[in-house]
């Protein structure tokens, strides 16, 4: 109910963050508790542990809700800034904010706010001209698919020539997070971006830290669109643990269609590509050990059929271990260029386990 949200109490943010971290650790312990359960034959013990597990799941769900905040809360300050900018630049424009009901993680709001403020300012400063027909407009749409928060800022203004700009920069797209500092400087020069570049670089680092993306699109004299995607952090999601070589990896369950034994299908090769036939589909087979340059000794036995963006691939791994709840931490900056890794998680045994980035892997193949 929308009214529930307006009852705001003062909560010490730090304590809240600590609470959330502790809940995350609880999740990891769920795996341990499951293990301990299997060691008891006595029903009373199992019942108690089951109760605990149930309570933990409920706490998880509740905390998720606690940490969520509607984007609405930043809309106001954005609108204020926008109006101020317009006055300063002496333009008239409309500010539309779609998707204000979208709930996002509390910790993300500050990032979103910073980015939006930054970009909106530039639009106000440079994009708008005194249009006689039609009105200047900035539309911010925010929506979440449970995994990512996508924010699109679209403005109709001067814009720039997308293809030319790309050519000049020798890039295929304007995915700014992959640009180097100098490239960004050049880009900003080309499109007459006047905001402080150092500030942008800070924002860029933040986005990279969040494992997000920022894309520019534009059509000259028509519109400029900036798409910002931020993964909703601290997602507790389910994953499948597999072994490749002597290492363990986690694959988010959301991408897995089915898991089959390698011996159940025939592998055919054509043009140096291996493929399998499964349920009347021909699916490309990828040996993950080769993908990751890991030495294996034993014959791989397990195939996971994964799907992302309508593309399907069969991943061949050494063996299937377990299903687990995991908290994916974004990967360290030092691993930025390893696209196959989405992030890291810490399993019940305390060891760091790498989480595979299925969409990236599928794009690569």
């Amino acid at each position, binding site marked *: 109910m929308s009214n529930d949200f307006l009852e705001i109490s003062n909560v010490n943010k730090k304590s809240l963050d600590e609470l959330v971290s502790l809940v995350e650790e609880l999740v990891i312990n769920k795996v341990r508790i499951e293990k301990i359960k299997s060691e008891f034959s006595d029903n009373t013990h199992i019942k108690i542990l089951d109760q605990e597990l149930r309570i933990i799941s409920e706490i998880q769900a509740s905390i998720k809700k606690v940490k969520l905040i509607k984007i609405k809360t930043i809309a106001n300050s954005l609108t204020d800034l926008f109006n101020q900018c317009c006055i300063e630049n002496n333009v008239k424009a409309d500010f539309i904010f779609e998707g204000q009901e979208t709930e996002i993680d509390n910790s993300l709001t500050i990032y979103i706010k910073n980015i939006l403020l930054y970009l909106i300012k530039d639009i106000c400063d440079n994009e708008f001209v005194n249009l006689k027909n039609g009105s200047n407009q900035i539309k911010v749409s925010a929506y979440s698919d449970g995994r990512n928060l996508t924010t699109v800022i679209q403005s109709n203004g001067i814009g720039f020539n997308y293809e030319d700009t790309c050519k000049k920069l020798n890039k295929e797209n304007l995915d700014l997070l992959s640009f180097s500092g100098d490239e960004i400087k050049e880009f900003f020069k080309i499109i007459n971006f006047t905001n402080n570049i150092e500030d942008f670089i800070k924002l860029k680092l933040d986005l990279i830290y969040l494992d997000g993306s920022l894309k520019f699109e534009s059509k000259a004299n028509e519109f400029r669109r900036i798409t910002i995607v931020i993964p909703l952090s601290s997602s507790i999601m389910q994953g499948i643990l597999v072994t490749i070589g002597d*290492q363990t990896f986690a694959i988010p369950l959301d991408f897995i269609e089915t898991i089959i034994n390698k011996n159940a299908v025939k592998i055919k090769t054509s043009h140096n590509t291996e493929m399998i036939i499964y349920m009347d589909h021909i699916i490309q087979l990828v040996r993950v050990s080769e993908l990751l340059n890991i030495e294996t000794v034993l014959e791989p036995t397990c195939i996971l059929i994964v799907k992302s963006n309508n593309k399907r691939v069969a991943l061949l791994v050494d063996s299937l271990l377990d299903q687990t709840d995991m908290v994916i*931490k974004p990967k*360290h900056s*030092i*691993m930025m260029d*390893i696209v*196959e890794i989405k992030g*890291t998680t810490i399993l019940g045994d305390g*060891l760091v386990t790498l989480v595979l980035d299925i969409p990236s892997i599928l794009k690569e193949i």
Partner: protein
Amino acid sequence: MQILTFLLRGEQFAIDITLVDTIQNKMPITPVPKSKKYVIGLISNRGSVIPIINTSLILNGKDTTNTFEKFIIINLGNEKLALAVNDIDDVLEIEQKTIENINNEEDFSIVKVNSNIITLLTYKQLQKI
């Protein structure tokens, strides 16, 4: 200022203690496929996942991966790194003026303490990682 001295490849190095988060004994490392050569792997420390750096390779030396015993966890910006070293000596107090720069780069400085020459790692050097 205070520095933390440690041993690597038989030589003495040091690092500004303000860069140091904590030190600990070596623990099992998860290797990262396709990672940079000097990244030995990842560890988990106090809830964070921290990459372990082969400090010897960074300092343009021979690889001594199998002889390091301790990690120095340092703060770089808002991220942490762990330097793998052979052993950790002590915390020393030194005068700013005893630090000399060699070839005027900010890559590394030399500090002379009790007639020992210790190579002091600089922030800039570490940032390169």
